[in-house]
């Protein structure tokens, strides 16, 4: 037979013979290509740039694709490394039978091309079938107008093909290097030697602990400011590295301690487990660490996704409590009456109804805060120093709230839009005031208890004279900078509301004393589309992370299954019963089951504060809700993890049981 026919045949045969390892590899590849293609298609669709409010979504998809590319590469290389380990013997046999290295290399090229072809064709086929559906789902979760003009994009195909060509190309290169560097004897032998015990175990353990600790220390008190993303990445890197070191050293030390305990070690159920794990401790430790890391990633992604999803309403209400807020500089406003009549006129014309309208004056001061004292702001750049005081007279407060509160000259009431103020006195500039009451709820603004950065305080003072004095304490200018604010909701058809807002914006901006307009409807749509995009990403990344997790778990079980097969065979000959084999396997599995799971939950707990702050920067401040989501997600993850473990363990058992007796 011709070489050119034989070699491709051998490579296809090699894949078929190793089905139990290659099929998951191919499946994972196809799925990855599918996701990559979908992201690429969405990004390369003109529609995405045309739709209103789609700016954030487009940006998020781009970040998503980038992250996908970064995560998939090392993962595919890891999977490939595993495959090569399993095939070394076969390659060694070929080279003993007379295939030269260049033949083997050619065979591997064929094989890689075959795999690449299957993966890219499979991924794109699935992509073509499902990308439109997924695009519609994306539009739907982002509450963007559904448009079916989604079209096939050649650029998406070429991008996906190029990316996976790079991935498999790198895999091929590492494989070729391995083949050329090893002798056939090395290939065929397969090491019987156990992993050498790493020297200076305690140093590894210490390094691991230091990095884990450093990661935790960065993560736990991280404050929201411009540095949080750097902090986040740094913490993640530290924890990943620390986890690896810790698992390596921790696991080995644990096993060694267990082995030293004679009563424990020489017991039928522990004996085989402990020695087996010690024998392949390095591989075990690194796959356990990887399982732990992917587990954490799955949990965190799911946690954020669910929190965003279930917290959308509260986020919206806090960020945009009113459909429209019109602000005027009260001192410059010449024509107050026409403002009211214009609103009435426009609302009649556009057939919308103005509801819950509220108007009041306040003086806004930008201040720094320390404990119970508000001082003149030092720098506008530090977010931690950017607090706003909104001073309102008691008269206006009583009017809006329909209450009969009284205050003396040195008394105030205070309302914090974020976390509670919590002091019984307040120092404003150099004057001390008694806090008569801290208000937990007001009709004209919303409160989010856990918002503890850059927040607003409303301070209700006895009258305008006192407010003005205070204003002068904080600012040198004598200009009357009271702000008149009008806040209201709209009812009516959606497009009429939009039209009304744009008309009122247009009109207002031409009036004397115009300050600003907050378009709550537009703002909410922007935020919802961003949330939707995050949700979409979150779901996909959770799936990708779980896929990585399951595949690593599966490969770990397979490798150990093949390693252990001979051992269990021998043990059965020497007199281990089938029930004993089963219980030993169960124990072995349980031990490695709980370790990464436990660590993943621990990581999540350490990262929890950071997660709440990151979500806080998206205006989700409901820590209770996030915690509930966290508990739910950990529960869900445990089930998923348990199921995949049960499934992969069955594979393990099947491999181990492929023996004569």
């Amino acid at each position, binding site marked *: 037979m011709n070489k050119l026919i034989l070699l491709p045949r051998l490579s296809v045969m090699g894949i078929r013979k190793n089905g139990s390892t290659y099929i998951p590899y191919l499946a994972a590849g196809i799925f990855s290509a599918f996701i990559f293609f979908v992201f690429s298609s969405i990004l390369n669709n003109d529609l995405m740039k045309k739709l209103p409010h789609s700016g954030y979504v487009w940006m998020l998809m781009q970040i998503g694709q980038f992250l996908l590319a970064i995560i998939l590469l090392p993962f595919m290389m890891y999977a490939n490394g595993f495959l090569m380990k399993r095939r070394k013997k076969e390659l060694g046999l070929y080279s003993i039978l007379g295939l030269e290295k260049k033949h083997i290399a050619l065979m591997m090229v064929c094989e890689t091309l075959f795999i690449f072809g299957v993966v890219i064709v499979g991924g794109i086929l699935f992509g073509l079938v499902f990308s439109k559906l997924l695009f519609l789902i994306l539009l739907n979760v982002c509450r963007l107008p559904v448009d079916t003009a989604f079209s096939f994009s050649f650029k998406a195909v070429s991008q996906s093909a190029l990316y996976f060509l790079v991935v498999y190309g790198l895999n091929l290169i590492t494989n070729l290097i391995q083949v050329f560097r090893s002798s056939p004897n090395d290939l065929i032998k397969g090491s019987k030697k*156990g992993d050498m015990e790493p020297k200076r175990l305690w140093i590894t353990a210490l390094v691991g602990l230091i990095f884990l600790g450093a990661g935790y220390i960065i993560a736990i008190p991280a404050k929201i400011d411009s540095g949080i993303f750097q902090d986040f990445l740094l913490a993640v890197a530290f924890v990943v590295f620390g986890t690896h070191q810790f698992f390596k050293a921790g696991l080995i030390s644990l096993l060694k301690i267990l082995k030293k305990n004679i009563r424990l070690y*020489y017991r*039928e159920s522990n004996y085989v487990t402990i020695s*087996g794990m*010690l024998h392949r401790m390095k591989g075990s430790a690194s796959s356990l660490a990887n399982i732990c890391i992917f587990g954490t990633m799955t949990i965190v992604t799911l946690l954020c996704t669910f929190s965003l999803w279930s917290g959308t309403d509260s986020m919206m209400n806090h960020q945009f409590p009113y459909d429209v807020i019109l602000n005027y500089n009260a001192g410059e406003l010449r024509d107050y009456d026409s403002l009211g009549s214009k609103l009435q006129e426009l609302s009649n014309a556009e057939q919308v109804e103005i509801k819950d309208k509220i108007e009041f004056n306040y003086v806004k001061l930008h201040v720094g805060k320390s404990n119970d004292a508000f001082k003149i702001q030092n720098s506008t750049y530090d977010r931690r120093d950017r607090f706003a005081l909104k001073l309102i007279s008691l008269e206006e407060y009583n009017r809006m709230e329909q209450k009969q509160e009284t205050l003396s000259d040195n008394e105030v009431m205070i309302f914090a839009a974020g976390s509670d103020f919590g002091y019984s006195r307040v120092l404003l500039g150099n004057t001390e005031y008694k806090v008569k009451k801290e208000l937990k709820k007001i009709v004209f603004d919303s409160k989010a208890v856990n918002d503890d950065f850059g927040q607003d305080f409303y301070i209700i003072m006895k009258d305008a004279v006192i407010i003005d004095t205070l204003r002068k304490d904080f600012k040198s200018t004598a200009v009357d900078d009271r702000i008149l604010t009008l806040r209201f909701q709209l009812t009516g058809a959606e497009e009429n509301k939009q039209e009304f807002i744009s008309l009122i914006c247009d009109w207002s901006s031409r009036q004397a004393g115009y300050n600003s307009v907050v378009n709550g409807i537009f703002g909410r749509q922007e935020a919802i589309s961003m949330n939707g995009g995050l949700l979409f990403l979150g779901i996909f990344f959770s799936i990708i992370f779980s896929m990585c997790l399951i595949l690593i778990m599966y490969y770990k079980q397979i490798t150990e299954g093949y390693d252990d097969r001979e051992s269990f065979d*021998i*043990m059965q*000959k*020497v007199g281990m019963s089938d029930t004993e084999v089963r219980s030993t396997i169960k124990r072995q599995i349980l031990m490695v089951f709980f370790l990464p799971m436990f660590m993943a939950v621990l990581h999540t707990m350490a990262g929890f504060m950071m997660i709440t702050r990151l979500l806080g920067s998206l205006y989700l401040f409901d820590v209770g809700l996030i915690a509930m989501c966290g508990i739910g997600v950990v529960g869900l993850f445990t089930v998923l993890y348990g199921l995949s473990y049960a499934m992969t363990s069955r594979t393990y058992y099947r491999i181990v049981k492929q023996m*004569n007796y």
Partner: protein
Amino acid sequence: MICLTNHRIAERNICMALLEIKNLKKVYSTRLGGNKVQALDSVTFSVEQGEYVAIMGESGSGKTTLLNILASIDKPTGGQVLLEGRDLGTIKQGELSAFRRDNLGFVFQDFNLLDTFSIQDNIFLPLVLAGKAYEEMQKRLAPLANKLGIEQILKKFPFEVSGGEKQRAATARALITNPKIVLADEPTGALDSKSSTRLLKLFNDINVEGQTILMVTHSIQAASHAGRVLFIKDGNVFHQIYRGNASNDELFTMITDTLTVLQTGGGKNE
């Protein structure tokens, strides 16, 4: 039934044979039941307490099948195997492992030591499976390790020691349970001649101390150490030689002669 049981007890009292093999028959059929291969036709022999029996035969003669049935790893199609009068066929599947562990010791051609265990832990394996205390295991190991000359390598791992040492370790594992009978499958098959000689010498010593040994082998040299040699051909016991007062060398010659007959004349007789 009662009659049969009485008969069996009576027989045991009379012969006191440790191991009795009666009309053992084994037919392998392919998965679809099409082709049938007869591995054992009708094998009958017995092994007395303290005997050293070698079983010889060509590849495909049924030696391995016989040993597997004796080891309770395989089930016969017909006939009986009695160990101290107890029929192996009546032992429940769940109890077989414990039965093997408590009554039989195994020495394999390829050692079958576990790479994950040190030599000492390999030897302890059957005792650990039997739930023995560590002190008890230590007590049993010390004299055995001394006798087999493996004291120096107890802490080492299988990949660190030679083939001969591995096989002596495997022998220690077989002996540590004080088995009623040691079943050895080509124990010298993977050893060089010097290690083989040393191992066979060991087997002799153990046998002299009272251990019953049943060894399946190709090697004339190995068989020439036994007290009795059984020849199997085409699933039947073809011939047997008792050592009597013969030396190893004389037995060697007798075996060679028998093998010659087996290979030339034996075939024509059928």
